[in-house]
């Protein structure tokens, strides 16, 4: 499926500055993407691995920037530094017993702990030639090794770590830019997803219409509308009795 669609080329023509601008600030994205920021979670060594790894998982090409250009490493850092990294919405009581594939994740680690453990083991293993200094082919081979084996990374099986890294990479590429990834809405423009725009009543039955309005982030919801119909008494405070 390596063919490059006509549509992609057209889009790249219109918006070709994306990969050149890379991480430069975008007035449209709403967030000052170029502001230098120290990682909140990752050490310098960890950050180097993540930045290089996501650039191979979703690489840049002649049409579209990849995960690096979309700021995915920044997204992952913010997620792991925050509530998600600390185990938000994760049932965390033991006993901790290995389960079947259909029982899902059963390790005692929060996402932050899992990344710290696994990255520590990886960077120790690769001390001689850090991942970020490898050739692209060697990087791909190493990522494939993580993906397809259960090598022990400080208590974290490598395939479990890879799956977490992959999920966060996809999230960082396609989630709203307010979370620090999907810079310039690169992921959305690549597939043609309009983002938070979200009102298509007049278009939904224009079957096959080419929708080329630029995507919109939560941060720039121009409508800022609140439904205030006096005839709809739907907002009621909890009665106090």
């Amino acid at each position: 499926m390596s063919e490059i669609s006509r549509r992609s080329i057209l889009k790249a023509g219109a918006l070709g500055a994306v990969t050149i601008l890379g991480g430069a600030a975008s007035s449209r994205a709403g967030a000052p993407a170029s502001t230098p920021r120290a990682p909140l979670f990752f050490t310098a060594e960890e950050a180097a691995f993540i930045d290089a790894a996501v650039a191979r998982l979703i690489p840049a090409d002649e049409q579209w920037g990849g995960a690096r250009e979309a700021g995915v490493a920044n997204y992952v850092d913010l997620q792991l530094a925050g509530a998600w990294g600390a185990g938000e919405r994760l049932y965390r009581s033991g006993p901790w017993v290995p389960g079947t594939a259909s029982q899902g994740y059963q390790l005692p680690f929060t996402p932050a702990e899992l990344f710290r453990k696994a990255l520590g083991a990886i960077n120790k293993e690769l001390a001689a030639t850090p991942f970020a200094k490898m050739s692209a082919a060697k990087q791909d081979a190493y990522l494939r090794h993580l993906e397809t084996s259960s090598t022990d990374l400080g208590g974290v099986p490598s395939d479990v770590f890879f799956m977490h890294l992959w999920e966060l990479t996809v999230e960082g590429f396609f989630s709203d830019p307010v979370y620090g990834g999907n810079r310039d809405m690169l992921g959305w423009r690549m597939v043609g997803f309009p983002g938070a725009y979200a009102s298509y009543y007049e278009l939904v039955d224009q079957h096959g219409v080419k929708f080329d309005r630029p995507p919109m982030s939560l941060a720039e919801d121009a409508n800022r509308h609140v439904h205030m119909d006096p005839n709809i008494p739907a907002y009621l405070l909890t009665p106090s009795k």
Partner: protein
Amino acid sequence: MATRLKPVDAVTIGVGLTGSLAALEIAQAGLTVVGLERGAARYTVPDFQSPPIHDELRFAVRKGLMQDNVKEAVTFRNYSDQTALPIRRWASFLPGTGLGGSFVHWNGQSFRFQEADFGYRSHILQRYGQKFLDACGPELTIQDWGVTYAELEPHYDRFEYLLGVCGTAGNIQGKIQPGGNPFEAPRAREYPNPPMKETYFGAIFRKGAGSLGYHPYPQPSSNLSRPYTNPLGLKLQQCVFCGFCERFACEHFAKASPQTTILPVLLKNPNYELRTNCQVLRINLDSTRKKATGVTYVDDAGREFEQPAELVLVTAFPLNNVRMLLLSGIGKPYDPRTGEGVVGRNYCYQTTGGATVFMDENININPFMSSGAPGTMIDDFSGDNFDHSKLGFIGGQYVGSIMTGARPIEFHPTPPGTPAWGQEWKRAVARHYNHTILIQQHGTSTASRLNYLDLDPTYKDAWGQPLLRMTFDFPENDIRMSQHVADKVVDIGRAMGGKIVVRGGTKRPYNTTIYQSTHNAGGAIMGSNPRTSVVNRYLQCWDVPNVFSLGASAFPQNATYNYTVTIGALTYWALEAIKNRYLKAPGPLVQA
């Protein structure tokens, strides 16, 4: 030490669909009702408004509106000889929490069940015989509901008009209607509103399925096709096809929910009091164990209260209804070794799956222009709409093109053979995102003596109470059914013009890490025999007659369709009996 509160006539455990609907009926009948909701109060304005509501990461991926696993999870195993382990993050099913419950984040898919679904065992035996049923699987424990479609029809009608369901009738009083579903059970009158606009993927499905001789119809929807005022005087607005419906709350007043169709009236009723952030620990019984005296709950500050009540309505999510009965010692727990006991028995799910149809790249599907219940479907393979006598299974699935927003973190299809990451993956995602159609299969879940719910012996919730333990795998019968339909769906995908059609169909074992359906059913089932049911045909507990357990936990097995409208109809049916008979002479409505 629990603080004892002033007694009330009735209490509901949960304020979602059944809790708000039942409370309104009872409050309007003049009784005092307290609604206890474990989650927070929330309203369309300001809680569901944009921009924050249109956030895939927060709501669809991180499950922002769902039960908090940190506090309460469910343990799971496929088979009873395994050790159940906690579902540490929701994936396969998504119980909601907070005012309005799962009826806030639902899609609005608004079907009735069919006539044969209610007398299911009798129907199967009459059409195919005992030998056939035994051959489908000796472990199958299908039952009749104890209520008929004809008895529920007026309640279906009433509930559909409450929601403002949009659709095209297929069968009005036995007369088949053009454009509707010719397989549907007879309805008294047309839907309250016309169907939604047809999406492009729906139109392509209509053409493909129609060319094969099937019977396409617009999916009935509680995303409104036009402004509507319901019988309570509450106004709903027209759905704008925003693409943020499933797993989201509606900002537009365009999806039927307790917030849009019930609560504004209920909260003004002087007989009603809502208490949110209240976790009910148990239903209290008197020394005879045959009468409930009320409930004990803990508020968000950790204070414990006893709320005395004459009538207790269990109105939580189906799984939590079963857990509440088990925690309270109401009904005999099911024992899979002996087949005795009832609470937890006949836990059922929904058999889903479907095909992915990759289209030509000059066809812009625009799948993000969508609602929660869009698209076009067929019932040719639903329930018992086709002859099973040579097929070796019972049950069926509806088939339809239903895409609910195509938000890209979760929707980025690639054809078989595409690498899982890297350059080729990225190009395939860019190529196929706007040119791919999903066809959904959605169908029956047959009860089995091997599948059940009980209390976990090891894992506890934040209040120190045992988690619910689920033991479940799809019966072989349901696998055969799903695989049979999967073949037909591939033909439809090709007829739609699919360049590549990836076959669907369910496989064993059931896996909790992949989203399938939030239609958990059974476990506190209704019936006519106290040895094989927890509640009678009016959803009244056989063992404790002043406790009624409402909702899909009462389904003896699950039918083809999304179940919300049937839950509503069954709630009205039970409440009619409570108002007209039980309140006049409290006691068993059916003699055991």
